């Protein structure tokens, strides 16, 4: 992705044969995130103003952290985002992640991720670009087949 000019907003979508509730659980429960989110374990009460942390698989290290800005299950979850797995990214300003789940016909849901407020966080923007693509395709595969993607 190095030739791509990074902008302050990134948008990703995927259609998943699953209910909004199933997708909500997959985003907010660690037993699911460990299978598609680079092994990270999500940890949050989801109350606005409370923290949301992505722990490393051994729970020793915070990979990401942020604060819940909005939580409307099973439709919309928004929080601030800092990448802590890399020092130069951790030093950048916090950005913002919004998950939206919209039910479609035929038991399919449309899931979108908007990662914005990246104006002052170019290293984070570059790093997450390929990551969201991998995460969303892994999430779809997990929910539709019950199997995680091969780890790369």
């Amino acid at each position, binding site marked *: 992705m190095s030739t791509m000019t990074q*902008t302050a907003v990134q*948008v990703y979508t995927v*259609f998943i044969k699953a209910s909004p509730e199933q997708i909500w659980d997959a985003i907010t429960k660690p037993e699911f995130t460990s299978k598609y989110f680079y092994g990270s374990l999500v940890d949050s009460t989801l109350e606005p103003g409370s923290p949301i942390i992505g722990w490393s698989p051994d729970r020793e290290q915070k990979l990401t952290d942020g604060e819940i800005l909005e939580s409307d299950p099973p439709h919309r979850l928004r929080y601030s985002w800092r990448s802590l797995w890399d020092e130069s990214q951790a030093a950048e300003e916090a950005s913002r992640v919004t998950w939206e789940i919209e039910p479609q016909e035929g038991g399919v849901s449309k899931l979108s991720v908007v990662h914005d407020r990246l104006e002052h966080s170019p290293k984070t923007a570059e790093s997450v670009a390929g990551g969201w693509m991998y995460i*969303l395709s892994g999430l779809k*595969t997990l929910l539709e087949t019950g199997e995680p993607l091969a780890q*790369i």
Partner: protein
Amino acid sequence: MGSVTDRSPIPDPADEAVFRALADPTRRAILDRLFEQDGQSLGEIERAFDMSRFGVMKHLRVLEDAGLVATHRVGRSKLHFLNPVPIRLIHDRWIDKYTEHRVSALADLKRELEETG
């Protein structure tokens, strides 16, 4: 999941839409523009093509329906973003087994080096 004896697989509408969208050179060129500069308005995309606004809109609609382009409102403008997820899923479908093989080959190599080293 179909078995190997399937003679005529039932087409997956989502897959069909992706391949149909990618079959057109103008639509691939639109994706190339968005790859170079993500998050463009209709006007910006239109300027790059010798085509009516209606024509560009029609192509964008096909790309959006296939999930290859995602739109998002920023302030007053509706911006178009390249959404690579469907292409990633095509990759996963046919390339994953090679990746797995590479990963397991590396794991074997590591084990071997550690045992002999």
